[in-house]
Every structure is written in C-alpha cells, then in structure tokens.
C-alpha cells in the first residue's frame, strides 16, 4: 500500500528542512524523507560562519544578502534557538599581491550593496588581537554573522513539523518511481510513497538521486576537515577567513603551481568561536569521495595555517575534529529549479560551503518556484540544466 502527498522532499539537512518549512507555510502537504537524521551530512559537520564577504559579487552575493535579511528574526519565527549573531567578519591579508586581489573583490562587492572595507594592520589588530606580525591588513564587514548550523537544521525541522510536514527519519530513498517521464513517487526502505512532485535536496548525494531518473548532475563530494577546541573565554572576536581562502575559491589557478601540502589539501583559514566558547578552526577542501575521516596531515596543515596567522592559538587545547562532505559544483553555484526531461523533479542541492548561509533564501526560492512558478529574484544562473 502506498501513501500519497503533494510533495516529497528527499533530504533532511538544512536545505531540505528549509524548503519543507517554506512549502508548509504556503499550505502544501509535504512529506520529508531523511535516510539518517537531521544534520547527518554537511549540515552537521560544518563551521558556523555566515560570510557575505566570501561570496562572489553577482548572483552569489545577491543570494547571500537576501538570506541575511531572512536570518534577522528567524529564531523568533522558527521558535527554537539558533545562536544567530551578527559579530562581523574579517578576511586576513598577508601580502601586497593578496591586497590587490582583495581590493578589486571588495570594490565589486560594494557595488552590489555589501558594507565592506579594507582596513590596515593597526585597525585590524584592534578588532582581533593576536594577529601574526606579517599580516598587512584585512577586510572588515559588520554584515557577516554566525549561526549554530545543527540548531538551525533542527529549528527548521521542528517548525516544519508544527505546520504539518510529515518528517520520516531513517527512511532512505532507494529509487524514484517514474511513469511517462514523470516522477510519481519514491521507493524507500519503508515502502513506496506517491507524490505529484519530488524535491532532491540531498546535498553531496544529489547526483545519486538524480541518477535514479537517468539524469547526470555534476555535483561531487568534497571533504572539509574542521578542528574544535576546548571552551575558552572569548578570544576570536569576529568570523575570520584568510584571503588565501578567497584566492583558493575563486582563483584556484594562482595556486596550481604550488607544491605545498596545505595548498594541495585546499587549506584556507576559517575561524569562529561558539557561544559556549569552543573555537572552530577550518578547513580543508579535498576530493576524497565520501570519506569523512580526519587525516593527520589535514589536521596538521589546518593548525599550522591557523597558528601562522594567529600564533596565540598554539596554547589552546583541542577536544575534537570533524570531517564532512560538501556538495561541490563546477561553477560554485547550487542547482535550484525543475529539471528538464523528467516532469515533477525539482533540484535544490550543490551549495558546497554555502549551504548554511543560503538555506533561508533557498527555501524561499524553491517554494516560490514550486507554488508560483517564479522566484523573487532572477534565478536563471541556478538553473539545474545549465551543465547539459
């Protein structure tokens, strides 16, 4: 016997639950299938930074700005704590060459409406004590923020459930039911479920679900390792990245010739401190399939990089390491929209390291496209068929 709902969402991470919440708000009857539990993939193994500054000027930054607006007041709206704070963020600059890249990056971001500036070393060290002597300055934006990603995921799930979404945990989709090029439901380890529409919000696993419909999607798993320290009194005052991270993200060719192990592992600084006082130190970007383990060289290179930029970190104890898989796409943008060739199949995956930052806006865009056929901003650059 199979049950029927209007919409089935596959994936109970931050993207799937955000979409479920937005659809339920619009009166849709939604069932969400999660193969394990909430926050079991990237949503539960990432850091807490919501950086606007790290986004490429263009649709990427526009999405982040729209999402930032939604984060204001989100905790009250969802009714569960999410530890959202706008502490501001800095991108540390180590050389005149990086300074040049960051100046043009910042100038383009300003045009889109981001409040961001380049500040010199003396001002930077006032905002974040302990900076290494070679640091020449940083960017600074008061708009960067932090959120507890696990709490965000669970808050969305609870709010969605309150609005009537049927969340089925430990329910793994093993196949899509397709008839006349139209998705009519899913097959799971707990039976068959019918629906008019299926949303693929499975992050780094989205290509496997798409393949069940015979579609090829260029989403690849990319590992990020993160280190967690003991709780200490507030030492990291802002969200902190290094310009090297931005260069690695948008100008990877500049680093291609480097033979350093850190560069090979894609190490770029990402720092923040939680409400409880734990410092989160990241991260690597590695293509190692679905391996979520931590590697000795990964941990070492992350810590070497972090202490090179902020030497006093050497005296802090670490209590835990994490390894998580992020959904990489070739152009760094997620795939959000209806797929071509199979009716009733909607993609919302491929956010890589931006899933937390873009979760609110992705939920809104997906719900608008599904219920109204049109989103509040032009989402053509997110068209899931753009790689065909």
């Amino acid at each position, binding site marked *: 016997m199979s049950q029927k709902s209007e919409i089935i969402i596959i994936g109970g991470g931050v993207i799937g639950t955000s979409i479920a919440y937005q659809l339920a708000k619009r009166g849709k009857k939604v069932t969400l299938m999660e193969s394990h539990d909430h926050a079991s993939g990237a949503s539960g193994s990432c850091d807490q930074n919501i950086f606007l500054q790290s986004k490429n000027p263009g649709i990427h930054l526009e999405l982040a700005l729209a999402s930032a607006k939604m984060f204001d007041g989100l905790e009250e709206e969802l009714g569960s704590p999410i530890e959202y704070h706008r502490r501001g963020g800095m991108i540390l600059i180590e050389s005149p060459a990086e300074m040049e890249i960051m100046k043009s990056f910042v100038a383009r971001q300003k045009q889109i409406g981001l409040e961001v500036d380049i500040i010199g070393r003396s001002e930077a060290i006032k905002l974040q004590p302990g900076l290494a002597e070679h640091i020449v300055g940083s960017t600074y934006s008061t708009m960067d923020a932090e959120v507890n990603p696990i709490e965000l995921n669970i808050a969305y799930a609870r709010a969605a459930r309150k609005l009537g979404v049927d969340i089925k945990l430990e329910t793994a989709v093993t196949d899509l039911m397709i008839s006349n090029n139209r998705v009519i439901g899913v097959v799971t380890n707990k039976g068959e479920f019918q629906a008019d529409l299926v949303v693929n919000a499975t992050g780094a696993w989205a290509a496997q679900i798409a393949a069940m419909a015979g579609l090829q999607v260029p989403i690849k798993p990319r590992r990020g390792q993160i280190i967690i320290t*003991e709780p200490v009194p507030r030492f990291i005052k802002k969200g902190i990245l290094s310009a090297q991270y931005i260069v690695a993200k948008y100008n990877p060719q500049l680093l291609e010739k480097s033979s350093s192990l850190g560069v090979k592992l894609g190490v770029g600084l990402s720092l923040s401190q939680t409400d409880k006082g734990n410092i989160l130190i990241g991260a690597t970007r590695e293509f190692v399939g679905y391996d979520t383990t931590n590697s000795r060289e990964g941990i*070492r290179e992350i810590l070497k990089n972090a*202490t090179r930029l902020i030497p006093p970190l050497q005296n802090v104890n*670490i209590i835990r*390491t994490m390894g998580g898989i992020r959904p990489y796409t070739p152009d760094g943008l997620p795939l959000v929209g209806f797929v071509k060739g199979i009716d009733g199949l909607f993609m919302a995956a491929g956010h890589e390291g931006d899933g937390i930052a873009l979760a609110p806006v992705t939920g809104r865009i997906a719900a608008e496209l599904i219920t109204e056929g049109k989103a509040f901003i032009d989402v053509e650059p997110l068209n899931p068929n753009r790689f065909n």
Partner: protein
Amino acid sequence: MADNSEKIYICRCEEVSKEEIEEAIKDGATTLSGIKKRTHAGMGLCQGRTCRKLISSMLVGVKEPTEIFPPTARTPVRTAKIGEFIKGEEE
C-alpha cells in the same frame, strides 16, 4: 529560577539532564549522534566517555541493543595543545 536540585545530569561536561535526553528521543533521535545533536550531550571536554553508556541504555527500547552504535571516534583521544600538533617536522 528553576530548582535544579532534583535534576539528574547524564552528561556532566555539557550539563545535560535525563529529562532533556528523553525530550530528544521524543523529538525523533534514535542514535547517540542524534541525541548529541539535539542536546550537546557528549560534545564536551570528555567527549562522551561517561554519558555514552548511560545514553545507550536510555535508547534501549527505541532501538535494539545491537543497533546502538557508538558515535564516530575522532582525533584527539585526549585534549591536546595545538602547539603539540604542529611541533617538529618543519619543512
């Protein structure tokens, strides 16, 4: 303020009570990792050394004992100074 004298703490590092863990189970958690994500039990300094067993026993009834898996083991085994990790092998 609430009277905490009657509370039974399962995770001492993160001060998570028996009641909060029961709430998490009601919320859908069926694994140690699910409880950890909902309550922070096991996220503290000792990384679940004491509470893991207690929580496992609370999950009996939700899951078969043979299906209650320990959470992923990760470095470090004990807290260790960052300086120790980066010592030596200077290229």
